[in-house]
């Protein structure tokens, strides 16, 4: 196990080094996405403050909603991963050859690259994110308090969801063996999951049928459920089922990736060079 870690951790490390090498890029991206966060924040604030609108929408007070928006965006920042692009790029440009000539597994390598991305963003962005969260909390009197046990549970679910997300993204990425150019597919999947993770609006606000379906999909565990845990708004039964659903999806995607990889690697074509 430690041997395993020693072999592959350099890939995570090199990703972290890369992020630090181009940290200005990360900061600019953070600012750009942060602007969207403020747009949503003030949009919801305006909706709640419009005279005649209810004080509570489907169990969310204005304060709940604003905290949810902040949390959802922060989790979104920290779990950002573009591993599908990496796979698409590796295959289209033939860079996958670099991995295949080494005594390493490409899929495990990807996992560690993804881990590096996660740790890198955590190091660069966690503190600025927390500063934004607590400043807004204080300034707008949102009354958000941290409960460490909730944070720990949310984090555990988040890790499980993150690995599931990784497997899902590898699954999508592997289609570039067949399609060569997968930007379109990635965009489609990103906009779908963006909505289904609850990062635009809480899943609790979805119409009933859609809500029922979404809860059983693998995406809610990435943003909606952890945010709800931290907000203290998730019933205990829902918490257990969230873990179980997430785990089942992880197994499904792992098997899917295995099958797809074994099929696709045979059709690898690298032209020129």
């Amino acid at each position, binding site marked *: 196990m430690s041997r395993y870690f020693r072999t592959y951790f350099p890939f995570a490390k090199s990703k972290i080094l890369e992020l630090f090498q181009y940290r200005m890029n990360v900061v600019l991206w953070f600012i750009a996405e942060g602007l969207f966060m403020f747009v949503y924040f003030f949009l919801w604030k305006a909706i709640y403050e419009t005279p005649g609108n209810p004080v509570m929408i489907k169990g969310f007070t204005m304060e709940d909603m604003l905290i949810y928006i902040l949390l959802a965006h922060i989790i979104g920042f920290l779990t950002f991963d573009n591993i599908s692009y990496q796979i698409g790029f590796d295959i289209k440009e033939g860079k996958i050859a670099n991995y295949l000539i080494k005594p390493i597994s490409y899929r495990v390598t990807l996992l560690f690259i993804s881990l590096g991305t996660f740790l890198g963003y955590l190091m660069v962005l966690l503190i600025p994110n927390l500063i934004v969260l607590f400043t807004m909390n204080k300034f707008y009197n949102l009354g958000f308090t941290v409960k460490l046990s909730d944070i720990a549970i949310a984090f555990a679910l988040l890790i499980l969801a993150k690995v599931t997300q990784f497997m899902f993204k590898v699954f999508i990425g592997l289609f570039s063996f067949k399609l060569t150019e997968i930007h379109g597919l990635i965009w489609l999947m990103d906009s779908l999951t963006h909505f289904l993770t609850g990062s635009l609006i809480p899943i609790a606000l979805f119409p009933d049928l859609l809500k029922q379906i979404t809860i059983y999909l693998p995406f809610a565990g990435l943003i909606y459920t952890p945010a709800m845990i931290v907000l203290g708004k998730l019933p205990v039964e829902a918490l257990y089922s969230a873990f179980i659903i997430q785990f089942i999806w992880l197994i499904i995607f792992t098997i899917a990736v295995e099958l797809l990889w074994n099929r696709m690697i045979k059709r690898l074509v*690298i032209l020129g060079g």
Partner: protein
Amino acid sequence: MIKVKNLTKEFVKYEKEKGLKGMLKAFFNAKKVIKKAVDDISFDIKEGEIIGYIGANGAGKSTTIKMLTGILHPTSGQILIDGLDPVTNRIANAKNIGVVFGQRTVLWWDLPLQESFSILKEIYEISDADFEERMEFFNDILEIDSFIKSPVRTLSLGQRMRADIAASLLHNPKILYLDEPTIGLDVMAKEKMRDAIRTMNQKFNTTVVLTTHDLDDIEELCERILMIDEGKIIFDGPLEDIKKSFGNYKTIRFHLKEKGFEDIDFGQELASAIDFQINDDIAIVKVDRNKTTVTEVIKFVLDKITISDIDISDIDIEEVVKKIYQKGEL
């Protein structure tokens, strides 16, 4: 060391017709075309040999190398590398091989060069002592110390290639695959690359498979040549054999000052020994040295016409391949 039997690789290509209409048509119903990149080839390579694997662009060289290294899966046929099948035992096989692709780098593009080496050290489980010793060795022959702290993307092509070959040799592989390692390099850099390859071969008896378009690489390094064209091996033997048949050609380029080259009467004997074509103000003359000499031809031409400059060159490898292919075999 390397045993290849009836190796074939087919690619499926989707052919598109011209223009927007063709693209639309292909989007719904593309025509499938099967292309044999490597067609039923067999060869054996012994330990410690340096093989020149040559052929024109698109002949199937790189595809063969990619199958030998385990990157591509053969459509049919067998490969055994030191007793291992590179497809089913890719990871075990990868420990024994070093690979340099001239056109791409195995180094970490955005990181300082030394980071790439320390990452490779971990991947190949190289001990500290071995690592130190080998880095010193590479520094002696490839002089990489001067740019080891620079990010790879800032290196010149020559520096990057030297770093790449050092990276491929770091774990002291039994077999080294070099796919056009001297492409685009200047004379000095080429010399350093060849030195490194020769030294490794002599010191560790490393088997080397080298593809190149540079006849000098072959002449300086390889005793044996494998030649491939349109996916088939068309020649397998010592360099001497090729030289005997084709090394006796030279090309002379006359830079003409006046018109009228085509009207020169070479006489029957000389005309049968040369072959020429004229591009603008340059006349390219191919001389068969079995029948005449280069000086003879130059002297003859200088007598008839005013020339501003002359270069003489050996026939290049693509030309040789073309000639061999036209004749069928040697």
